[in-house]
């Protein structure tokens, strides 16, 4: 179980750090346009999320690598991925042919994106449950 946790931590960390990197190397307003295409948030919220989300992803990625506060970091990671998945499912179901915004601009939201995000979400949830179980068994 420890090896699985380590593998999940590293995979999720790599994905989050790469996602942050791709967004931070592009103009942040381009990411804002991707977020806006989901038609969920008012302009002020779109701009706030575009400014802060890549940094949150970078922070979560680094914390996952370090293993510091794993239970809570994994919980926040899971929550974030569940939100991403729900938002993407909504957009896909409504037939919005939009930019996923996952790894910078230019990736269309398709069923493949949903499968990838679903797998990441499942991995994050397994990591969270495992981290809490491990804490309980050791106390």
């Amino acid at each position, binding site marked *: 179980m420890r090896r699985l946790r380590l593998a999940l931590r590293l995979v999720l960390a790599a994905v989050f750090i790469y996602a942050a990197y791709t967004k931070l190397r592009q103009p942040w307003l381009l990411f804002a346009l991707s977020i*806006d295409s989901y038609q969920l948030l008012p302009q002020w919220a*779109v*701009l706030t999320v575009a400014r802060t989300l890549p940094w949150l992803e970078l922070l979560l990625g680094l914390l996952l690598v370090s293993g510091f506060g794993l239970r809570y970091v994994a919980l926040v990671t899971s929550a974030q991925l569940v939100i991403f998945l729900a938002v993407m499912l909504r957009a896909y179901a409504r037939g*919005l*042919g*939009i*930019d996923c915004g996952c790894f910078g601009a230019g990736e269309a939201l398709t069923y493949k994106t949903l499968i990838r995000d679903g797998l990441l979400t499942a991995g994050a949830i397994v990591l969270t449950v495992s981290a809490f179980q491990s804490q309980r068994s050791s106390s």
Partner: protein
Amino acid sequence: MKNILASLLLAAISMAAVVPEAMAPGKGVGVASAPLKIDVFSDFQCPSCKASYEETLRPLKNEYVAKGKVYLVHHDFPLQQHAYARQAAAYANAAARVNKYEEVSRELFRQQGVWSANGQIDSILAGVLKPDELKKVRSLLTDPKILADIEQDIALGKKRNVSQTPTMIVSYKGREYPVVGNVPDYGILRKFLDDLLSK
């Protein structure tokens, strides 16, 4: 001597290969030397393209294209699922030959709901084209060059990873920024363009 001539011929062919894509008249709006270029890949039958044309491209033309900041280039990218999109693109490209691309595009989007239901595009255009222009457009619909122009736009879109419409590709100082699908919020797009222009 033969070798020199052959080299010159090869050089001419390779130069022709890197010349930017040929474009029907009227499909590029504004000054070609503007600092920003925006390529728009669009489908006349796509509802988001209509909204994007009316809510985003219209103010963009007034505020950026007219002031020489943006060179806007339309590309046809008719999607398979839209039965009359290719036909509409043919009308628009034929209209470009009589310098009425913009007028016909505007009318096609404005009356999208009408011709999308029955495919009757011809009658819609009678309102924006003079009888002689409409006659010319009709005759051009079967011109292989018109169909080749559309195919060229589609090929260009595929080459640039376009899969959804509308897709805008903003080019500035050698870098490309794709804005994929749906209707970009004009307020955010304006901030983005101003930010690029300030760099």
